């Protein structure tokens, strides 16, 4: 057992703070009734980043196990969707005349962030229910669960991005300097997905209604977001309304940054601000309700 003893010596030398709440002296856990508003628990989330990593990896590993096509699905889904939409909206409804760029690349550049957002929000929403058994049996910061649920969709996002590069080549779009805006758009999309997802995951624990509301909500959201239609079909004076949608200004800016169109910085700023507001609101709500998850879930 000598090896185990030496390892334990190493462990003892580390600060023994990982399980501790923010308050109280170092190394002391205080357990008492908690009520009201608490800290957001971001520090705890950071201490448990390894768990966050493994939960996300689990989702990714499990995602395409025993599928014949494996990770190709990540590419296939948005691609097929793009083809279908191009046929229907591009040809049948003549949407392509209203877009400045070829409709397939227009719609794919919108679908990418949208499909990530939709997948991340629905995964987050259900994450606490799917992992209910863990919540009942082990203590760890609950926030890791809905946050980790965003990992697998994020990987799909990255993989399906390669198709966008292919489409750009096919249609002869050279990357412009505006590309530097793209990471910001991705970041805002992640923030929005986390915000909405965390909020809904907390709500779903208490109100299972949201399991039925969310898929429907995402569908409606898809149609009010400029994914398959260009902002130009909406009268100028209503553009601020579109930006109130956290995905509205973001998807527009994402598309513009890649295809080199004019970027609506105002719209991006408003959408970004609203995304941050969702994240803060989601974290605050989550921190308030997480203590009773184990009893309710």
């Amino acid at each position, binding site marked *: 057992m000598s090896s185990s*003893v030496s*390892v334990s010596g190493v462990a003892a030398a580390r600060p023994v703070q990982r399980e501790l709440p923010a308050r109280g002296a170092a*190394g002391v856990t205080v357990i008492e*009734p908690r009520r009201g508003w608490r800290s957001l628990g971001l520090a705890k989330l950071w201490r448990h980043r390894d768990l966050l990593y493994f939960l996300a990896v689990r989702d990714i590993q499990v995602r395409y196990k025993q599928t014949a096509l494996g990770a190709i699905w990540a590419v296939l889904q948005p691609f097929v969707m793009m083809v279908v939409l191009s046929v229907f909206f591009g040809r049948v409804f003549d949407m392509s005349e209203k877009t400045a760029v070829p409709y397939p690349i227009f719609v794919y550049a919108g679908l990418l962030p949208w499909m990530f957002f939709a997948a991340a929000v629905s995964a987050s929403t259900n994450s606490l229910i799917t992992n209910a058994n863990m919540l009942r049996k*082990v*203590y760890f910061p609950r926030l890791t669960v809905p946050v980790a649920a965003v990992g697998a969709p994020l990987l799909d996002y990255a993989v399906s991005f390669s198709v966008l590069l292919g489409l750009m080549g096919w249609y002869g779009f050279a990357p412009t300097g505006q590309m530097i805006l793209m990471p910001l758009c991705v970041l805002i999309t992640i923030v929005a997905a986390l915000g909405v997802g965390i909020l809904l995951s907390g709500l779903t624990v208490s109100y299972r209604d949201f399991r039925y509301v969310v898929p429907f909500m995402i569908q409606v959201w898809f149609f009010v977001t400029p994914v398959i239609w260009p902002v130009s079909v909406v009268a100028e004076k209503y553009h601020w309304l579109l930006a109130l949608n956290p995905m509205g200004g973001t998807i527009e800016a994402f598309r513009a940054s890649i295809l080199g169109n004019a970027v609506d910085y105002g719209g991006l700023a408003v959408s970004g601000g609203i995304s941050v507001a969702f994240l803060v609101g989601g974290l605050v709500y989550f921190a308030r309700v997480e203590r*009773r998850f184990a*009893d*309710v879930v």
Partner: protein
Amino acid sequence: MSEPIIQVRSLGKRYRLGTSARLDRTIPEMIEQTVRGGVRSVVRGLGGRAGRGRAGSGGRGRGKREQRGGGERGGRSLWALRGVDLDVQRGEVVGIIGRNGAGKSTLLKILSQITDPSEGRAVIRGRVASLLEVGTGFHPELTGRENIFLNGAILGMTRREITGKFDEIVDFSGVERFLDTPLKRYSTGMAVRLAFAVAAHLEPEVLIIDEVLAVGDAAFQSKCIGKMKEVAGDQGRTVLFVSHNMDSIMHLSDRVMVLDGGRTSGCMPVEDAIHAYFESFTERGDVPLIELPRKVLADRAATFSGLTVTGEGGQANLVACGRGMRVDVDMVNVEGVTAGQCGVIITNEQGHRVVVFQSRFHSDLVLEKLGAKTRVTCEVPSLSLVPGTYHIDLNLVEQGRMVEYVERAGTFKVVFADVLGTGRLPNSQQGHFVIPCEWRVAA
């Protein structure tokens, strides 16, 4: 002596019975309360952090709860645990025993921070790891290797710690040949061994363990007990564990706490505790069955409401050896039961299960579409148990899942009858059963 590593003071936990506490608040009510709470906390925040102290928030919160639980909405509540005090010194091993529903698991859950107490306070001075279930978070699609990392992370280990102990864990589990096989192809025993191996290599200062040794085969159990001893003894860790197995309680604990109906009179020496535990069954007197503590895992109120044992001769709670016995079980609130099975479990005075009579095993009887009040009857044509005192546990299984368990719902005596025709019977020291047989000397 240094400060106790665990200090618990008047800890209590209250659960609401019936539907979930949240669902009888409507959405508008919830919004109103949330907004009010927000305003209050903002005001409190402006008034300095002093207002967030324990007395302030705790006191107010408690008032609110009392009101909510207090019947204005017709909700009933139950103290699963109340007024629990406990001091544990560094390096001590404390066993926790008690009947089903005595609050053992609730106490462990509070100390593991899985659920919040409703009142009271506990202080733990060190890193805690808890093991309330073996293999929490195991994913059937992942390989053994992947599950070791996932499970380790869930239990609170960092990636580096797991990597450092990976070989040791694999060694302890004895499943190295299947490391890259998905867990779904493991036998239950292998999965349990792997799970315990991960847990055994946690290096907390305080280890909290619920009845996890109940799974796994005997050889592995003794290996685990050995590992637990090593954890407690050599490495000076503190262990708090629940068990129904009096052998492991006796082997492992320095002191034992007996919980009864959510209350305790503190820690005591092992022998006294085990005595008190058995006492807690006998002293109940004529409490009606429906009021007995029990484990209820379904969303319904208690169902077992009555139990009568009648011997062939018609006497209550008295059965002659080898003669017939009739057990009547009365149940209430069972309208919603689907695919139900009722079990009558007979235990002897030492607490060992002797025999079980199970509606589905023995009669292919599935309980379904029952009336609100139902009586199920079990007729045993010949109860071949050695004379002595026996207890009956009742359980209800629904869709393959145990949903209710009442320990010692009743007691009866088996008395002498000349079933063997020799005027003699073995006694309870010699065996459990009286089974006729023929002896002769080979020619």
